């Protein structure tokens, strides 16, 4: 664990050894088309230049004759080409929402920090399998942009440490701009609290998806946002807008819970319709368990592809 807890490396705290011990055996795999030059740990769904035989297919003009399975030609008198599993390296971009709502914390760890942990761990996994790592933070505009690179892991971690939630957020504007930055397909990890209407969220994300990227969405929520466990009637201030609204929690808690669950359910439905991985993360849950459960599910799904 070279990245362990060294203070010398900015953002190193986001690479939690305990978390990594738990998820260390897992691989961050891209399900979609990933191009790369380095044979890595990624198993692309496409055939490539690896040593793992996948299947035969009929020869078509233009195929490299070196890939013709001559033994099979001898038996069948037909040209078949051998195809192998392609192991490629890919771009992993962490899109981190640093709008003001992300600094909310009701029980210790703010959502932004939690998001950084997730992003950091995934970046570490990607970097370990020689994928290129990049990062992009945004609120109502793009704040920092670190292009994916095999050498940018430390830069990414440093940017995470410096990230501060200071401005109100907006998904549509920055994500539209981001789409212009992604020239190659890759894995895009979007970490946000998605305080927008599900339709608006999908509308904002759609440009990323058009490029063929593998979109992984983490919906980070504080437990207070889920169960609304307030008791005293107070004036609630919206972190995004600064607006204050008098609230009697006991009177609306049921309705609020129903609404947030409906919001999550709506996002789940819409993301699954677009084949986007969507995971709700509760900051009260241990990070390792959340990440492990996600990666396990992703690997399990990969097998049935």
């Amino acid at each position, binding site marked *: 664990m070279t990245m362990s807890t060294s203070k010398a490396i900015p953002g190193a705290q986001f690479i939690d050894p305990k978390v990594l011990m738990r998820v260390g055996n897992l691989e961050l795999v891209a399900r979609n088309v990933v191009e790369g030059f380095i044979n890595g740990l990624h198993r692309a769904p496409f055939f490539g230049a690896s040593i793992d035989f996948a299947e035969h297919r009929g020869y078509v003009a233009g195929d490299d004759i070196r890939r013709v399975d001559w033994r099979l030609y001898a038996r069948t008198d037909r040209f078949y080409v051998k195809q192998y599993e392609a192991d490629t390296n890919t771009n992993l971009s962490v899109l981190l929402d640093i709008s003001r709502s992300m600094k909310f914390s009701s029980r210790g760890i703010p959502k932004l920090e939690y998001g950084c942990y997730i992003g950091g761990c995934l970046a570490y996994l990607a970097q370990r399998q020689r994928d290129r790592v990049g990062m992009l933070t945004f609120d109502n505009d793009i704040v920092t942009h670190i292009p994916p690179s095999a050498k940018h892991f430390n830069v990414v971690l440093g940017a995470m440490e410096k990230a501060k939630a200071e401005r109100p957020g907006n998904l549509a504007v920055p994500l539209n701009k981001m789409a212009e930055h992604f020239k190659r397909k890759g894995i895009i990890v979007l970490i946000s609290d998605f305080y927008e209407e599900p339709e608006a969220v999908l509308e904002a994300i759609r440009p990323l998806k058009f490029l063929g990227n593998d979109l992984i969405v983490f919906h980070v929520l504080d437990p207070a946002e889920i169960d609304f466990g307030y008791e*005293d009637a107070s004036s609630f*201030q919206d972190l995004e807008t600064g607006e*204050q609204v008098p609230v009697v929690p006991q009177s609306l808690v049921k309705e609020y819970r129903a609404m947030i669950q409906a919001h999550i359910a709506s996002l789940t439905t819409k993301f699954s319709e677009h084949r986007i991985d969507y995971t709700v993360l509760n900051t009260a849950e241990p990070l390792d368990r959340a990440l492990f459960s996600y990666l396990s599910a992703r690997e399990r799904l990969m097998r049935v592809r």
Partner: protein
Amino acid sequence: MVFLTPFFLLGLAAIAIPVLVHLIQREKKHVVEFPSLMFVRRIPYQSVRRRRIRHWALLLMRAAAIALIVAAFARPFLRQGAAAAAASGGAREIVILLDQSASMGYGDHWTRAQDAARGLVRGLGTDDRATLVLFNKNAEENMRATADRTRLEAAINAAKVGSGATRYGPALKLAESILSRSPVKRREAILISDFQRSGWSGSEEVRFPEGMTISTVSVASPNTANLAVPSVAFARSSFSGQERLTVTAGLSNKGDEALKDVPVTLTIDGHEIQTEKANVAPHASGSVSFTQFTLSTPNVRGSVRAGTDPMPADNTFNFVLAPSEPVSLVIVDNGDRASSSLFLAKALGIGTTPVFQVDVTSASRLTPAALEKRAVVILNDTVFPPAGGGGTLKKFLERGGGLLVVSGDHSTWPQGESELLPGRFGAAVDRTTGRSGSLGFLDYSHPVFEVFKAPRSGDFSAAHVFRYRALQTTPADRILARFDDGAVAAAERRIGGGRSIVWTSTLDDSWTDIAVKPVFLPMVHQLVRYLAHYEPPTSWLTVGQVLDLAARARGRGDRTDRIVVTPSGERISQSSVGEGGEGLLELNEQGIYEIRSTGAANGRPEAIAVNIDPAESDLSPIDPRELVAAVTGHATPTAAQPAQSQEMTREESERRQSLWWYLLMTGLLLLAAETVIANHLSRKEKFL
């Protein structure tokens, strides 16, 4: 309620604090940051609810607590009223004497008096007790001692101006009696009146002991204008066998301005007969005579109305007229001298009130039937008439007849009829030698001589008596007059309902010259009136008089029940028995009372006119201090005392009442209760 330091009341603005705390401050105190209120904003109900006051009781308790505390700092005290401010220190026993005599009906006197009484009641302290006494000629305890202001005020509101005369004596005596029974140290009578001078003679013998005070509230107006009809006179005359009557109304102007062309109207049986114009100088009297009219039936109702002024009660004078009834009498003489009854007959022929119907006959011609319809029999120097023997004269006397026995040479009295004569005749006493006799003693308390009681009202000593008959009376007989030598001149004996009087000399010029003296005629008239039980017909009575209806009915032999209709229309049933004072009717109202017998045939009911006391028309006031000084022995400030003394007692009143203490404690208790309730609700709802 008055505040000693009213500027503290500005603190009442603090009542807004609980409201602001409830609606504003509490929300701003705890600001909770939340990532996004996207969902909260979709539930607008809570915002509305928050801005609505849900616990009114709590809010009211808070506001009331603040108001009470602020009021306590303002140091409130109850204004005790002008009369109450004069005294301080403990509970008081108060008697409110409210004048309801007829004179209080002048202008707004009564309204002001009621206002003053109500003001006094409102100024009562919590421990004070008050008694309401309404008085005119008499005093009545209208509301017994009570601290209930509502009842007192209701009694004051229900009181009305009466028709009675003003007399302060009974009211003050009643007040003294009430206050003397009270164990309270501070005892006070408050007299609310127009302070008519006629209501206080100075000889009432009312004296408040030490410890009792009297305050006065005068509602008298400085310049009063009042025209009154204090009396009416009737002149009767006979014309063609009918009685004609002339009404003369007296007018009295009690104002400072002369009255010109005042209409004075005579009304008979509801018809306006005549209206005359009259001029009356200020503080002077006048009269108006109306033309004659024939009077043929009894119970004719009439009234005289003069002008209009702020006191209408005395502008009308009511009366009831009836044809005069002559007194029938017979003079029995010896018949031997033609002139023996001349003086008596002539003297009795002059009378008009009443008219004497005189018949002269001799003793021998007198028949028992002649006594039947006579009221009086005069035996003028005659022998005892044979017709009167055998109990006839006795029966005449027992049924109410009158007998006058005039002594003389011929007078004889049988032994068997001696009970009819007040005494026993003796021999004639001759006073012709030497100095003649004269009347030396007269019983002026007797109705016969009562009219001569006043000085220079008849000189009996001028009459010379030359002879008289000695008379030996019994102790049961009443001596009416004696001669200068002590011999009885006149004596009376009552026999049944009748009266028998003996005059021991003659009533002509034979034994005495009294027949030619001025006192002869009135004396004879008085004798006959008395013997005939003559009562001059009263055309009106005065408010406050009591009428003995039972006695009137008995006199007429009326045995039926009666119904009395008062001027205000109230019907009073009275049985014919009239026991226990039932036959007595107190005349409290001005106007015409009707007395109807239940068994009587339809006809004109008996009527009695009642007028207010003429003294009520004189509104000239007495100085209240004079009255107070007479009652208490020392002058006491009246209600109109200087305001400075009231100001001096403001601090004292506030300190004594100490209302601030109760207000402060109540406010603090409210705050404590509010805290408990609020905490309870807070635990229960977890949001407040």
